[in-house]
Structures are given as C-alpha cells and as structure tokens.
C-alpha cells in the first residue's frame, strides 16, 4: 500500500509523468508575472490618463495660466477662454445639492440605523441603494419634463413670493437653472450619503448607546448626542463622496441647467457647469485652442477628484483607527 513517489509515477502515462516532473515553479512564476502586469495596467491607465489630459490642454494652459479659472469670458469666436462661469455653476449647484441632501440623507440614515425595525430598514435601504444605479440620463429625462415645469410653475413662484427679498430668489423663472440642477443633483447624491452614513452609524458599538440610555437619555438623545458624534467622521466622508459625484455629474445637469455661461446671483437663472460645457461643446470645438481649453476643464475636474478622493480616504482611515482605539473620548 505504501509507495514512494516514484511508484505513483509508475502508474501514470508518459504525458502525466512529464507534467509531474516539470513541476509548478515555472507555471507559478509565469502566473505571478502575468497577473502582476495586469494589476499594473491599472496604474498605467491612470498615469496615461493624466499624461493625456496634461498634453492636450497645453495650449490653453500656456495661453491663460491661472487666469483660466478667474476670467468670466468664454468666447470661442475671439478665442478667449475663462472658466469662472462654469466653476461658479458647478460650485453653486453642488453646494445646493449638498444643502438639501445632507440633512435629508443623515436624517434618513439615522432613521434606518437607529429607529426603524431591522426588516423594514433592510428593505428601505435596498430600495434607496437602487436609486444609485439609475443612469444619469434618466434623471435628466425626468428632469426636463417633470422637474423643470414644476420649478417654473410651482416651486419657483412660491420661493420668490416667500423669499424674494434675497437676491437668490429674484429674477425670471425659466424652469431650467441652478435651482433645478441643484434639486436633481440632490436626489442623485442622496443614496450615497444614506448608504455610507447608515453603515457608519450601525458600526458604532452598542455599548455606547446603552451607556447613554442607562443614564436616562431618550432614544433620540442617545442617538443625537452620542451615536452621531461618534460616526461624524464617517458621515463627513460620505459628504465628500457625494460632493465628488455632484462635481462630475454631466448629463442630468446639462439637461436642466440651461447651458448659459453667465454668472448670476439668482438661483433661478440658467447657468453652466464644467462637465456640462465639455459635453456640449467638445464635438463643436473648432481650433486647437478651443479643444485644449475644454481638455483643461477636464484636467480641473480631475484635480478636484484627486483632492476629494484623498480627503475621503484620509477620513475613512481616521474613522477606522478611531474605531480601533475604542469609541468616543469623554
């Protein structure tokens, strides 16, 4: 019954024997090499992306330097390219989106993690997370035909009559504009805030809740004063993620913002965002400088992504190490 390794070989065919003798070292080394190259391809693609963005924006960068971000005029005919209107539009719509989505999202996350029964919470979370999968162009479609008319006929006039003393809510209401874009963006980033915040809240150890309750807090008080502060860094991370999404969002915004490169104080006014102008004008860019200016806008978006991504990672890292250290300091 007991045989040495050669005896097992004796039962095998010549082909099997050859396979056995060749051994695994060669195969393993090749496999390691091939998979390494595949992994490095991600690095390579990312690097290549940066290189191409940099190269293809050279003309504009050399022509305008940093004034690119501060000049108000975007004039393809006279080849003067200043991106301020787009930066303004992007910032305003994103800020508006966060203003709406963060309270709503954190509130929903609190309900789903602390107050709702588990089954209901799971079902609702499932549905909310599906919202994140809806394509941008579908949001834009509903945006054009539902939200725009609604803003023009209902929300706009209501806001103007209630808050018209603020420059924000003055001027003509076209339906398209910063306000509409901000609203649509808010709905689009909402699921990200909720999903991450809920997870972070759920990961706060139960001992903290129980400690607060044992001291006589109400459910809400223990949640608001103990659990949420503990989860605050993670929630902030979700906000950065939502911001990154909002800044880069193209289709839904370009379909409802009005595509007008003007800076205006009123939220009702049409505007433009960085992503929207790239989408609209790229195929019509005559002349290299025009194209390079648009690519430089892409470079700006990329830069913003790198910064926000880094911040979000740092926050996640901080939350993780805080969790290891063990909860909130008194």
């Amino acid at each position, binding site marked *: *019954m*007991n*045989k*040495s*390794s050669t005896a*097992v*070989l004796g*039962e*095998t*065919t010549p082909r*099997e*024997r050859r*396979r*056995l003798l060749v*051994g*695994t070292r060669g195969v393993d080394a090749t496999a390691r090499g091939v998979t390494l190259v595949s992994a490095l391809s991600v690095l390579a693609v990312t690097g290549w992306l940066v290189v191409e963005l940099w190269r293809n924006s050279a003309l504009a960068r050399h022509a305008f330097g940093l004034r690119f971000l501060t000049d108000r005029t975007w004039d393809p005919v006279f080849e003067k390219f200043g991106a301020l209107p787009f930066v303004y539009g992007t910032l305003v719509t994103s800020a508006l989106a966060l203003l709406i989505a963060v309270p709503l999202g954190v509130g929903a996350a609190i309900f789903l993690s602390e107050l709702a029964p588990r089954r209901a919470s799971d079902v609702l979370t499932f549905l909310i997370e599906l919202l994140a999968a809806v394509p941008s162009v579908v949001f834009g479609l509903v945006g054009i035909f539902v939200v725009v008319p609604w803003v023009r006929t209902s929300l706009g006039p209501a806001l103007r009559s209630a808050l018209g003393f603020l420059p924000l809510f003055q001027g003509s209401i076209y339906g398209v504009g910063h306000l509409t874009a901000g609203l649509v963006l808010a709905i689009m980033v909402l699921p990200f805030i909720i999903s991450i915040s809920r997870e972070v809240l759920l990961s706060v150890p139960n001992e903290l809740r129980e400690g607060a309750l044992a001291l006589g807090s109400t459910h809400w008080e223990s949640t608001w004063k103990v659990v949420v502060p503990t989860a605050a860094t993670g929630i902030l991370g979700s906000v950065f993620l939502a911001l990154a999404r909002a800044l880069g969002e193209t289709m839904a915004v370009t379909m409802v913002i009005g595509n007008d490169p003007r800076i205006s104080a009123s939220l009702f006014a049409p505007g433009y965002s960085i992503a929207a102008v790239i989408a609209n004008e790229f195929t019509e860019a005559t002349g290299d400088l025009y194209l390079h200016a648009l690519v430089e806008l892409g470079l700006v978006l990329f830069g913003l992504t790198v910064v926000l991504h880094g911040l979000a990672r740092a926050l996640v890292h901080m939350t993780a190490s805080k969790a290891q250290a063990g909860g909130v300091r008194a």
Partner: protein
Amino acid sequence: MSDPAAAARARERVAEVTQNQKPEIPQEKEPARMREILKIRARKVDFYYGPKKVLQEVSIDIREKQITALIGPSGCGKTTFLRTLNRMYETVKHARAEGELWLDGDNILELELSSLRRRVGMVFQKSNPFPKSIFDNVAYGLRVHGIVRRGKLAERVEQSLRAAVLWDEVKDNLHKPALALSGGQQQRLCIARALAIDPEVLLLDEPCSALDPISTAKIEELLFSLSDRCTQVIVTHNMAQAARVADYTGFFLLGKLVEFSDTKTMFTTPASKETEDYITGRFG
C-alpha cells in the same frame, strides 16, 4: 513536588485511563511495533518567525507505522513543529527552519515541495473540504499528481473513502456537494482526500477538536485502522486522546521538546518534572 499524595493519585488515575481505554491491539500489529524503523528523524531543529526563535533544538524520532502524539500547552510549538514536517510554513514570510529533518533518506528541507507533500499528508484542525462534490474532493490530489483517467480515479476514490470509513455513507451521493456533509463526515472526507495520494506519513493537527465525542471516537478508530498503512503524527490538546491513541508521545513546552517516550511510560512514570506537572493538570 509539594503534594506527593495528590501526584500519586493523579498518576494512578492516568494509569487507569491508559489501561482501561486503549482498545485491544490485534496481534498482527506486534511485529511492526517491535521493528522500530525510523520514518522521520529530526535533529536540533530550530524554527524562526523573523528574529523570534519559536522552536529550540528539537530532536525527535518518528517510528514507522506508529502513531506519535505531540502534546503540550497552547503556544508550546507542537503545531509549529508539525507544520515543519511538510513545510507548510513556506507561505509565511520570514519563517524559516534550520537543522536536520529526514524523511527516510531524504532531506525534508530540500525535497521538491510537491513530492514532499505527496509523501507527507496533512489533516487540519477544522475540516476544509473544497466547495466541490465529494468525488472531486477526494480526486483532487490524484488529479494534481497526474492521475486523470476516469476509471483509475473512481477506483482510488472508492479505496480512500473506504479507508476513511466514509464510503457506505456517501457512495450513492458522490456528486453531491461536500459542504452538505456533517462536521464529522467532512473531517473523514478530508482524511480520505489526504489518503487518496497514498502518503507515507499522515500529519494530523488536532483533528477532533471541532467535533463532538461520537465523531471523535469514530475518527480515533479510523486512525487505528490506518496504522498498518502509514505513519501518523498527531498534535492534540487532549491528553486522554493521546493516551488512548498514541504509541509514542512527545511533550513540548515553550518551543522545546521536553520529553519523548512510549505513551505508557510518559503517562505513568514521566522523567521530567514539567511533564509530570502538565500531565497531572498543574498547568495547561
């Protein structure tokens, strides 16, 4: 010894255990026992995790076709030593073994890894069947080592499952998933899987620690029936198990092999004080 009476009572208890619970040894086994051929020889084996020395000058003789048990408290190095015998430590960075380790006439530390592990098989603490069918689990090692013809595979799979006392329970369900088996059955499947490639030595790392007493008893019987087929080295936390099952026992403490002798002597008249203290339950 601060309490001679207690120690003596403990010794008596252990002697009872070894005498009452070891089953009848069939007569055919006696000659093999007397033969005393050394299957594995370790001489001054040191083991390091990076700079930390975890095994110190371990020298031990594993006799062919005998069951050798390695006992000792948690962290004493018995499992570390077991895993040097089939070089399982090689997936861990900065782990290295030094010294002499011989499998018959071959240097374990220099043998080609795949051949070594065909000759020295291993069964783990928690059963780890692959997420495949029962048949494919047992056939896995065979396929790796070059046996791919359907007829030959089926024959070897049946042989191994019979040897592992599992055949009757699974023969009609060979293509059902292995994970559907109970814990005890899964462990016997893992033993069959290891046996399929005809190892000369079988290493068992606390094979029953995750199992209930009935499954444990089945596996211990199984180990007996295997002793005319291969040499076995078993690490166990359970002294009574060592006493039941093993021909020879080695006691590890803090990375050193403190004592090694035949089981009866180890448990009735241990030579060193530490062994006696461990066996009588002074520490664990």
